[in-house]
């Protein structure tokens, strides 16, 4: 029988694929198969009569009534074979047309096969999808529900955004179909259409349908709808907030086994639905105290029931509950329950459960560090596990529980794993993490320099260039302390120099770009400090480095690295006093370089060296990267030239209108000016002109090698915030056009300040130049840097009994600062008090906060853009986290006392991080009005004087000032730097997050709200959408500071993140509530 024969062919195909020994062999089989299939298709053409010899592969089947067109079953097999071809990575597009044909077949099985093959093979941009639309439309409204179902499934995978409109009506119609299987597919399909093209499916309609479907009488439909709700709520939670009671009641019914037993899975009632509901609850409960409180009970029940079952499916629910509990507004009882579930996971023998345990722990420690303490040994064991996945998760956990005490240990561990890793994902991830914790918690500068250099060595190609800039600033500035801790700075520089000298000597050919550039700059500036190697030896080493083949390859052969090395050599030559032969040769070589920038530098240097060597010292001053440079802003030395040009008919220079625009390079070269440039031929450069050019070049082109007239090379700015030319700071070596330099000088050299505002910092140390705002987390900071005075070495920890195991030692190092357990002897506490004092005098020890350097402060004073956008929020988070630790430290006396200097007020702050802690407030508040137990959600004191209605509309707010203790607050007129200072002094922090607000959808609206509340607008930074305000109450006895960030998204809505800091927790709390109300 021919039919038999055909299937045998297929059988042989599968068999030979199965037996093939190599990919090549498999490919050959498939290529052969493609040829056979194509032939079949050819024979199938109408009118073509099989000429193939019977029995030959693929031939002899095209007799009438048995072609692919007429025999659907054969066509079906043909398609499955095409599917195989595609699945094994070959192109089966020749057969798609058959799939489309089959989709139009009468028989449902054939139809579905056709659809299915289309769904699997057709890429979204394939033109055949247009051919299918018509068919889908017809099938959707078919009276045969199997056809509708097939079409609905096809819709989810075949429709593209441009085609959504063609089927949406039919899909919506199917939502009311009698058969539940159609309804459930329809709702999923509709959601899919909405995702593809939100315009074609109105959101309101979708949400309304979804809410209706949630109450469908069929549990399957409800289950499918949960998927859709979760997906929608993740984008915008607002329309689903009021579903909490319904969801809770559904979850309750599932837990009580009210669903048909068909939905049970291994005797667990519908675990999928339970899990989904818990997930949705966690999305809704996040940042919403009220919603969170409503779900505590059911979460507890659900968790307990799942714990009882103890099989995998129920563990999944447990895990979901843990996640939910850590995400919603914290509840101590639930947290404890989650904590004990986590310990069960961690101690399990199943690797999967341990993995989940570590993940759960990581999610809980960020906000509740105390839970980490119970699991020290378990975590150490996971670190030693040979299972890579578990190990990675544990590293992530370590990263999250880093604090100033254990940072050295944890960084060591992470570096160790980074060294051994080959996986690019892991490497990138670890590099970022190490940078973050090193910057955030560095115990001292020397450590920071060593750590970051080590990181450069291991994974320099993955490091953010800004980290290198930071490192250089740190070396240049040291502690940045005004009181002249110059000696400590010199020690640091010397350490750094010796570190790099050793590197230069040992591994000149294995360094990556970041490392070479940092090394070149540090040695160029401070090479003379080396006691290991003489300066001329270093110069020699640098020359070799410059010429090595390795260097030439760095950065894809980009010239910037070589320019940097050249600058370093020049600087060192000038420090050395004479030019060693090697250097002279190198510089001579580069006068013929094809890189114009390097060539120019070398030529100029050579000229200086031969004609006026005494000037070298002035051009390359020693350790002057921080000096403020006297720049002739008016370029008066060019006046002669200008006058001459004008007298020759050139148009006088016209100052561009917006000269504080950051992207002014293009702006200042507006069409007019550009034209002027084009039309007037350049003057032949006179002698003066050449000198001017060179001076200019020195200032901007030299990058970090900045010479005497460098206004602010990276070293001169604590971070690139304060740098006048952000481009330069981010990549010191970036080649720059001469043109820019001129524009720079003319455009805005003088009024430096506006520049920094627009620069967003991608990393934590950003607030450096803000001094004060950096102090936003300064409350924990003094505590944090306690480690500086007495760095807790792991070795100091184990003192106890004989059975002190290595693991316990590790645990002690690891969990230092998290809690006091018996294993952590109180070795360091001896120090805290002596340490505390120096801290006060050197408040900013850590590199990221070299803060108010004498140089930087005046420059950046007007600028302090309050905060860098996201990272700053991070800092604030960490601030409250730190506060948490602080509180604990006080509570448990045996805790390592690095934290002792924390102000007492800090310690008194409530432990859970979002401290508005409304329930606690009525008892504490002396103000009589606030006894009113939040009947009107946070109106509090204001309630008596301000009519309720006025709070609804921000426009009506005209006169309703925020009142505290019955008295309106007074604006506190301070400047941004003062704001920053006070920010750090305020012990209580009250974050307010409004996920979507229309009343404060723009920065100015938000500022209006604040001003109307009676605050002083300190600064409004449009570039980053941030604003700061201040007010005082009780005649200045209590101060409240407000920082707000607006993140607009579509539809005129914005996410608003506000942080209220106050000297008085009551004031802060009420103000936070008030603002929350207003913003909503």
């Amino acid at each position: 029988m021919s039919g038999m024969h055909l299937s045998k062919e297929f059988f042989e195909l599968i068999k030979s694929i199965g037996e093939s020994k190599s990919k090549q062999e498999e490919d050959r089989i498939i290529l052969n198969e493609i040829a056979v299939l194509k032939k079949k298709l050819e024979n199938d053409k109408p009118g073509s009569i099989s000429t193939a010899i019977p029995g030959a592969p693929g031939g002899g089947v095209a007799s009438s009534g048995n072609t692919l067109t007429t025999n659907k079953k054969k066509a079906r097999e043909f398609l499955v074979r095409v599917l195989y071809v595609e699945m094994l990575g070959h192109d089966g597009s020749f057969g798609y047309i058959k799939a489309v044909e089959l989709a139009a077949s009468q028989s449902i099985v054939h139809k579905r096969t056709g659809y299915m093959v289309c769904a699997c093979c057709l890429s979204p941009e394939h033109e055949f999808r247009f051919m299918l639309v018509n068919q889908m439309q017809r099938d959707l409204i078919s009276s045969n529900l199997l056809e509708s179902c097939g079409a609905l499934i096809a819709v989810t995978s075949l429709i593209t955004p441009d085609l959504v409109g063609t089927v949406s009506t039919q899909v919506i119609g199917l939502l009311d179909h009698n058969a539940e299987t159609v309804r459930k597919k329809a709702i999923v399909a509709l959601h899919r259409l909405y995702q593809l093209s939100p315009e074609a499916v109105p959101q309101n309609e979708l949400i309304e349908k979804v809410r209706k479907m949630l109450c469908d009488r069929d549990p399957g439909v409800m289950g499918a709808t949960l998927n859709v709700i979760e997906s929608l709520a993740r984008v915008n939670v607002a329309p689903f907030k009021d579903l909490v009671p319904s969801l809770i009641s559904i979850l309750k019914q599932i837990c009580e086994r009210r669903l048909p037993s068909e939905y049970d899975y291994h005797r667990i009632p519908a675990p999928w639905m339970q899990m989904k509901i818990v997930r949705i609850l966690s999305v809704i409960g996040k940042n919403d105290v009220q919603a969170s409180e409503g779900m505590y009970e059911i979460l507890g029940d659900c968790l307990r029931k799942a714990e009882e079952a103890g099989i995998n499916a129920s563990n999944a629910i447990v895990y979901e509950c843990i996640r939910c509990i850590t995400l919603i507004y914290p509840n101590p009882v639930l947290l404890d329950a989650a904590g004990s579930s986590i310990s069960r996971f961690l101690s399990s023998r199943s690797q999967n459960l341990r993995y989940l345990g570590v993940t759960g722990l990581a999610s809980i420690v960020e906000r509740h560090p105390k839970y980490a303490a119970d699991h020290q040994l378990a975590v150490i064991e996971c670190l030693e596990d040979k299972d890579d996945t578990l190990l990675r998760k544990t590293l992530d956990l370590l990263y999250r529980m880093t604090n100033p005490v254990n940072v050295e240990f944890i960084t060591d561990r992470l570096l160790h794993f980074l060294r051994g890793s080959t996986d690019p994902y892991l490497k990138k991830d670890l590099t970022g993490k190490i940078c973050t914790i090193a910057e955030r918690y560095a115990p001292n500068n020397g450590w920071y320099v060593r750590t970051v250099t080590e990181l450069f060595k291991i994974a320099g190609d993955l490091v953010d260039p800004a980290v290198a800039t930071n490192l250089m600033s740190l070396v240049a500035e040291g502690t940045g302390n005004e009181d002249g801790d110059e000696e400590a700075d010199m020690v640091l520089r010397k350490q750094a120099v010796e570190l790099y000298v050793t590197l230069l000597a040992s591994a000149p050919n294995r360094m990556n770009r970041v490392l070479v550039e940092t090394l070149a700059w540090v040695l160029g500036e401070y090479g003379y400090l080396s006691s290991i190697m003489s300066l001329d030896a270093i110069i020699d080493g640098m020359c070799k480095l410059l010429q090595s083949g390795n260097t030439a390859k760095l950065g894809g052969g980009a010239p910037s690295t070589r320019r940097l090395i050249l600058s370093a050599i020049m600087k060192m030559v000038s420090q050395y006093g004479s030019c060693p032969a090697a250097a002279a040769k190198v510089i001579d070589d580069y006068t013929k370089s094809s890189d114009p920038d390097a060539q120019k530098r070398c030529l100029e240097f050579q000229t200086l060296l031969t004609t006026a060597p005494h000037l070298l010292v002035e051009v390359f001053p020693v350790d002057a990267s921080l000096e403020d440079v006297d720049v002739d802003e008016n370029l008066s030395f060019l006046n002669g030239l200008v006058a001459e040009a004008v007298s020759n008919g050139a148009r006088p220079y016209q100052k561009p209108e917006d000269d504080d625009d950051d992207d002014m390079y293009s702006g200042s070269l507006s069409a007019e000016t550009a034209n002027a440039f084009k039309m007037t031929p350049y003057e032949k450069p006179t002698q003066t002109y050449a000198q001017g050019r060179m001076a200019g070049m020195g200032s901007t082109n030299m990058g970090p090698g900045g010479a005497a007239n460098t206004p602010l090379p990276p070293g001169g700015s604590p971070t690139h915030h304060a740098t006048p030319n952000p481009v330069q700071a981010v990549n010191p070596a970036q080649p720059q056009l001469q043109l820019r330099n001129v524009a720079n000088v003319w455009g805005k050299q003088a009024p430096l300040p506006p520049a920094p505002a627009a620069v967003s910092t991608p990393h934590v140390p950003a607030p450096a130049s803000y001094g004060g705002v950096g102090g936003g987390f300064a409350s924990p900071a003094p505590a944090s840097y306690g480690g500086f005075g007495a760095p807790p070495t792991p070795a100091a920890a184990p003192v106890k009994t004989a059975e002190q195991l290595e693991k316990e030692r590790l645990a002690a190092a690891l969990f230092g600062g998290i809690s006091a357990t018996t294993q952590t002897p109180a070795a360091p506490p001896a120090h805290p008090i002596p340490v505390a004092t120096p801290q006060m005098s050197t408040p900013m020890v850590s590199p990221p906060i070299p803060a108010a350097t004498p140089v930087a402060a005046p420059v950046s004073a007007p600028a302090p853009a309050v905060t860098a956008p996201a990272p700053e929020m991070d800092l604030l988070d960490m601030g409250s986290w730190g506060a948490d630790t602080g509180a604990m430290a006080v509570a448990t006396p045996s805790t390592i006392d690095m934290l002792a200097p924390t102000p007492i007020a800090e310690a008194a702050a409530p432990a859970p991080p979002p401290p508005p802690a409304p329930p606690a407030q009525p008892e504490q508040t002396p103000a009589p009005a606030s006894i009113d137990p939040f009947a009107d959600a946070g109106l509090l004191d204001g309630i008596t004087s301000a009519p309720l209605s006025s709070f609804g509309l921000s426009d009506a707010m005209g006169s309703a000032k925020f009142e505290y203790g019955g008295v309106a607050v007074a604006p506190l007129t301070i400047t941004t730097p003062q704001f920053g200072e006070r920010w750090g002094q305020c012990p209580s922090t009250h974050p307010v997050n409004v996920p979507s607000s229309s009343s404060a959808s723009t920065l100015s609206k938000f500022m209006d709200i604040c001003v109307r509340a009676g605050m002083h607008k300190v600064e409004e930074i449009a570039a980053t959408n941030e604003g700061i305000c201040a007010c005082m109450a009780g005649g200045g006895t209590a101060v409240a500071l407000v920082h707000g960030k607006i993140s607009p998204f579509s539809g005129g809505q914005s996410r608003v993140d506000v942080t209220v800091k106050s000297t008085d927790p009551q004031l802060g709390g009420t103000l936070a509530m008030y603002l929350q109300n207003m913003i909503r």
Partner: protein
Amino acid sequence: MADLDNSKLKSKASAAIGWNFIVLMSRQGKIRLSEFFSSYTEAQKKRILRDIATDVLPRQAKMCNIIEKGEYKFVYRRYASLYFVAGVPVEMNELIVLEQIHLFVEALDGYFNSVCELDLVFSLHKSLMILFEMFIGGMLCESNRREVLQQIVEAEEMVESMTKPGEDTSSQLDDGLSFQEQFQLGRKPGARGPRGNR
């Protein structure tokens, strides 16, 4: 350009809460079934398949069944010599994915009546249909096994009833093998076809 935009849109659409892809791979690294719910380029698909072969297959039995790969992770389960590997977004609950895989296997088992690798190989399209019935766009939408099988079987019965007399039914894929051939494959003759049919 247009291609790029389209594929971006599509992958964004289903990435959030469901499976991104499912691959069935034998221990020898042969692909038995693959379906990408989110759209990936050919190069990405190749890379995923290669990653599965290099990362999943060599893992020891006791290790955990999860491998993180940046923006997605593999969650896999091994049945005899066949690995079921689901690619899911990072934030997805790994344990429930493991159970979802098992649910799929149970459904296959119910349909093929004690499923084995050969069933899947020879009835690729049937397996895919079951998959599509359960996971629409990667989201588990039908967790009731009976419901799933009923859909498939009903459709098949309809075909039976529509078959005209005299048409060559033996060329239907599944029944195309002689008993002898089935024996060669190590299978009990007759032990196939949906339960509902017999």
